[in-house]
């Protein structure tokens, strides 16, 4: 190989990628509405209008899929596209007459149009078995199974407010906070391969990673290694990334938990973190039916009972947790009572009880 090239360090300007109508009206938009699910209509103070057509993708895309999406952009949207934070693609057109044929072309090629307003948008997800070095499950597969089941909810706007989902393959939760989040929850301490620890792991750093100080250096079979106080261990998996011989993933005991009510928007209530409402679900590849069933139950209860503009967190704030568990049929167990630092602020310090 020839001498490697010195990199050009620069974060490039995005202006050349913008649709011409966005350049012309940059910073001058007045309002928007949604003529139909999957379409946003923005109007500028200048009177200019654009329609954005949003479609779902599989995120993990092969080059043939991307080229097809590009063909559609060349045909309808002046060769410009943008992506949303949830891996939806958006095509912007300045001519309303292009909207219907663009939607038809996307649907014909298998890209569902939707994900706007009070719909269930695409799941924000992590890499999983496909590429991650510490995954408990395969987010892409969980997401495919979930979005198949929620296809109509993506294409329609029938929820009380927007629904944002995420999935994460370990407790680090790279998928992020969401109205409903599916996250791996390990239930057994790591299994340690003592033959490898000394060569692979920087032991003091691993000891320092543990949130509950359950790991200590030890000599095992005459070799320097690490041991875990299994009574203290909370099975979070934090030791596994810096020390792969501390295997936390287990086909049977790495379960899935479901969390609800996370919201990053400041609209109405302050932003909230999601809360655990179900756990112990099997890691049942390839289509995770038990997870899908719980997600469906929660969504249907919210859809039936939430008032317009109530996000999942707002709905639960109104009806209270006892009725959330009643309406969803999910069991409330002792594991849902927080005992981590700051946890007493999660307890009901009042006589406010709904009967």
């Amino acid at each position: 190989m020839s001498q490697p090239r010195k990199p050009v360090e620069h974060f490039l300007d995005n202006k050349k990628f913008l649709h011409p109508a966005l350049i012309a009206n940059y910073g001058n938009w007045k309002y928007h509405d949604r003529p139909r699910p999957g379409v946003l209509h923005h109007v500028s103070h200048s009177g200019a209008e654009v329609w954005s057509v949003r479609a779902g993708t599989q995120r993990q895309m092969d080059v043939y899929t991307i080229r097809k999406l590009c063909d559609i952009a060349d045909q309808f949207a002046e060769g410009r596209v943008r992506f949303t934070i949830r891996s939806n693609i958006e095509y912007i057109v300045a001519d309303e007459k292009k909207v219907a044929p663009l939607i038809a072309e996307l649907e014909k090629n298998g890209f569902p149009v939707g994900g706007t307003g009070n719909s269930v948008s695409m799941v924000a997800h992590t890499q999983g078995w496909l590429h991650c070095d510490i995954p408990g499950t395969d987010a892409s597969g969980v997401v495919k199974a979930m979005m198949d089941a929620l296809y109509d909810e993506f294409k329609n706007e029938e929820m009380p407010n927007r629904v944002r989902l995420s999935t994460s393959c370990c407790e680090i939760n790279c998928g992020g906070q969401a109205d409903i989040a599916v996250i791996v929850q390990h239930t057994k301490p790591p299994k340690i391969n003592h033959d490898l620890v000394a060569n692979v792991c920087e032991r003091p750093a691993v000891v320092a990673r543990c949130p509950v100080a359950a790991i200590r250096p030890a000599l095992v079979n005459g070799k320097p290694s690490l041991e875990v106080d299994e009574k203290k261990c909370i099975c979070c998996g934090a030791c596994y990334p810096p020390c792969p011989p501390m295997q936390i993933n287990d086909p049977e005991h790495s379960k899935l938990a479901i969390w609800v009510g996370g919201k990053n928007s400041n609209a109405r209530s302050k932003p909230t973190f999601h809360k655990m409402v179900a756990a112990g679900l099997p890691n049942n590849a390839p289509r995770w039916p038990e997870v899908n069933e719980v997600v469906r139950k929660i969504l249907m209860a919210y859809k039936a009972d939430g008032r317009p503009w109530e996000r999942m967190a707002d709905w639960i704030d109104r009806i209270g947790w006892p009725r959330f568990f009643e309406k969803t049929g999910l069991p409330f167990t002792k594991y849902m009572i927080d005992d981590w630092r700051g946890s007493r602020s999660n307890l009901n310090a009042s006589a406010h009880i709904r009967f």
Partner: protein
Amino acid sequence: MAKKLHDTPNLDQLESGPWPSFVTGLKRLAKDKDYVVDLLGHLEHSYKTRKGYWKGGTVGVFGYGGGIIPRFTEIKDEKDQAVFKDAAEFHTIRVMPPAGWHYDTDTLRKFCDIWEKYGSGLIALHGQTGDIMLQGCTTENVQAAWEEVNAMGFDLGGAGPAVRTGMSCVGAARCEQSCYDEAKAHHMVINRFLDDIHRPALPYKFKFKFSGCPNDCMNSIQRSDMAIIGTWRDNMRTDEKLARQWFAKHGMNELVNDVVGMCPTRAIQLKEIKSVSKDAHVSSVAVNDTQALEINNKDCVRCMHCINVMTGALAAGKDKGATILVGGKSHLKIGATMGTVVVPFMSLKNDEDYEQLVELAQTIIDFFAENALEHERTGEMIERIGLVNFLEGIGLDVDPAMVNSPRMNPYVRMDGWDEEVAKVNAKKAAA
């Protein structure tokens, strides 16, 4: 023509159903690439045994210390040889995408051509870091692929204990709720910290996210060390034509239940037009011939709800800028923390304002680099040292907008009280 596919009875079940299938995409790539044939075999093995089989390592490009995510297979036979030998290495190249994730098709097609030539042909748009993820490359091909990407004008994203790839919303390009030029702030901040992105030398990761309004579409408050959330400090603007249109379509029940009743600080009231306050801090707009919305802008917390419901009829003010919050992160190690306010309002109008934002970012990163423990995020550092020590370290004054409430316990040593009161009074007098 590639070699024959492995049997993939599990993955095959992810080809049915209406949502686009990544498995179908992989199989299309596998028609031409032995690499992807073995990748499918590798993934099927994970589905069958319910475990992951990639381990990290060290792969990089010339001149940089990060940005490549190395993966080596752990599925080995009894002779320690890779079972799926054509996919024994599956590295990812993180590439910083354009602000707001806007592309032209020439650019996307070039990425496809490069990745078809050097990699697996699988591209994630986008990873949770916000990066373009060129997934699946051998060690041998990483440098050549990267050089072609760099020649297109793109640069690598962050990985490890470094400043990470930033994220910004669609913002001013196509959103009336935008309160500053998100892309401009994103460009200026990231271009200042390229060295900290490409050569990981911080205590741990540091993330910037740029959201144009408090709807926070970039999830900056929960996912970034420094969140720049657009806001305004003057009165909300109103548009009577759009307000009347909205009311004609939605009616009184929705106005009361969905707009007035959902205001978190009861800043909105429904009034007879003739009794609307003339106070300078009030915005009002008629919805019909007799009734109007009256908004007390002193009580409004800029939550965005009413603006979201009545877009255009109600709108952000004109004195725009951002609220800056520090310390958002996920669980590891102390539990998830939200970003908390360190600057209630920073004006973002002219170039000097944006320079000031970059300087604040530099000050915060310098303090973080000096004071955080190894593997400690800003949120954990602030919890350990206290917000006041952090503010004093970066030279910002305390403000009651930084707290939910004042202190609820007496356990503090307060012998500096008089000096602090004098400082606050002097500052008031000078203002």
